């Protein structure tokens, strides 16, 4: 019985890893094709989907590494993405019992809020944006990006459910 559970957990971990790698690849390969003021953030989806599968500590590490990736590609805001993504991933892992039930709309809301909060934290901490530009970025473009990201996340959950379905813990 215990061996069967371990085998099941191993298969689940393997599928989750594949899903994570695919999302990371999509972040680097697909996102540049559609870059604009509002675009899909595959990295945020990958981190949030991972965060709800692992413990908060490990989720924080995953978020930290994801943020480090972003910061390495944009040195001017170095540290901001790490900080925000660590907190976001940790909070996502803490709240997984709320958002990752079998109700898929809640998952979309989780991704939407996660992406929007990340943008808010990232812009406020790392970017020197003020005034109207800040308001437009946080109240117009960030919600649009969050909505697109949430929509893609829901599509992934619907179409490739075995890879991204969260296990009840």
């Amino acid at each position, binding site marked *: 019985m215990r061996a069967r559970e371990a085998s099941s957990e191993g298969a689940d971990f393997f599928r989750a890893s594949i899903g994570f790698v695919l999302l990371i690849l999509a972040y680097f390969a697909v996102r540049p094709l559609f*870059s604009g003021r509002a675009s899909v953030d595959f990295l945020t989806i990958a981190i949030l989907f991972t965060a709800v599968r692992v*413990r908060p500590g490990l989720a924080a590490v995953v978020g*930290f590494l994801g943020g480090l990736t972003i910061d390495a*590609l944009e040195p001017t805001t*170095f*540290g901001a993405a790490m*900080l925000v993504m660590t907190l976001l991933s940790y909070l996502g892992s803490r709240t997984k019992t709320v958002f990752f039930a079998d109700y898929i709309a809640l998952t979309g809301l989780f991704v939407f809020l996660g992406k929007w909060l990340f943008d808010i934290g990232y812009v406020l901490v790392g970017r020197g944006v003020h005034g109207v530009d800040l308001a437009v970025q946080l109240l117009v473009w960030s919600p649009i990006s969050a909505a697109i990201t949430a929509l893609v996340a829901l599509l992934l959950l619907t179409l490739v459910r075995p890879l991204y379905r969260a296990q009840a813990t």
Partner: protein
Amino acid sequence: MARSVRNTGRIDTALVVACLAISLFGLVMPAKMRATVSTVLRGTVLAPFVTIESRSAGVRAAIASRNDLLQVRGRVATQALTAQSVADENATLRRLLGLSSRLRDGFVAAEIIPSRGVEDDFTLTLNVGSNAGVLPFSPVVMADGLVGMVQSVDANTSFAITWAHPDFRVSAMSVNESAFGIVQPHLGTGAERWLLELRGVPFRAKLDTGTLIVSSGLGGTYPRGIPVGTVLGEIATPEKWARTYLVKPSVLPAAIGPVLVLLPQRAVRGVNGVWANMTSADSAARAIAAAGDSLARRAALDELFARRAALDSANAVNGVTDSTALVGAPPIAPPTAGGPVIPQTRTDSLRADSVRRSQAGRVDSVRKPTIIPPARTTPPAGASPSGNGAQVRPPATGVR
């Protein structure tokens, strides 16, 4: 169990705190150290991802440039279509400019106002009226020849009928004055509707295909010498005592654009030499061509050779040159980049022609020299605006 859970919680907390601490350190790190760390990461762990990202960006740039290329192609295609129409319009205007230069005075340049309602192919609305001196019966001409006649005039606009109008009539003659008649629309069906016919030509006057028909000046509406069309061939009619010829108009309907309205004083003075004098006829067009515009050069040379061919055929009939000699002569070559090629006439053609005429000995075969039909006669009051009443058909025995 409780201890295990508590330890796991502590580990989680420791990991979070550690990650946050490192993140905060990254935030306050000196810029140089940030750049170093970023460079190391991009060159090692993230190198494959950076490569993928750059290639994706390249693909996007290629797609964007492809779209730009397609847009540029579309614009070029559109401009090519409009360029042809602009070139045609330019050629028409230059030829009109040449005609204006030859007329010198006594005319008004007019634009055609597009029809506002039902399309009418037989009438034109011009943007000049009585304020510019335009009167009813004023001839409307283009560089190619006769377009029509002003029918009614307002202060700032006037309405003209074209040669295709069923009421259009013009007294005409062959350019060598060997045949006179009345030109009117053919009133056929289909494409033949856009042809003219020369009616009432004396039976003995036979015209060859390609003979230029010009206005005779009889009737007073149209001055003498305005090209009307060229003979396409004879058509059968019930009138056995006269011939009727099908005539291709000099001004095709599609070519009708900016026009000149001849004012009454100019119509009275006549337009002798404007369309027929080879020396002065194309001086303006040649001057424009000399300016270096290739389009104008081509149009001017086309016009020059067309007129020269018409005069050559007229001179051949008049006996100045032998038409039979021209049969063997090389045809008129189209204008080339190197300049015009003048057809050579055999030097013995004059003598052969005169000998043949003297041998014939028929009195009626010798055409009386240059009996000019009476100059313009004032149209009678109340004459039909269509010109029917203003035209006087030449008597059958008038000049022959």
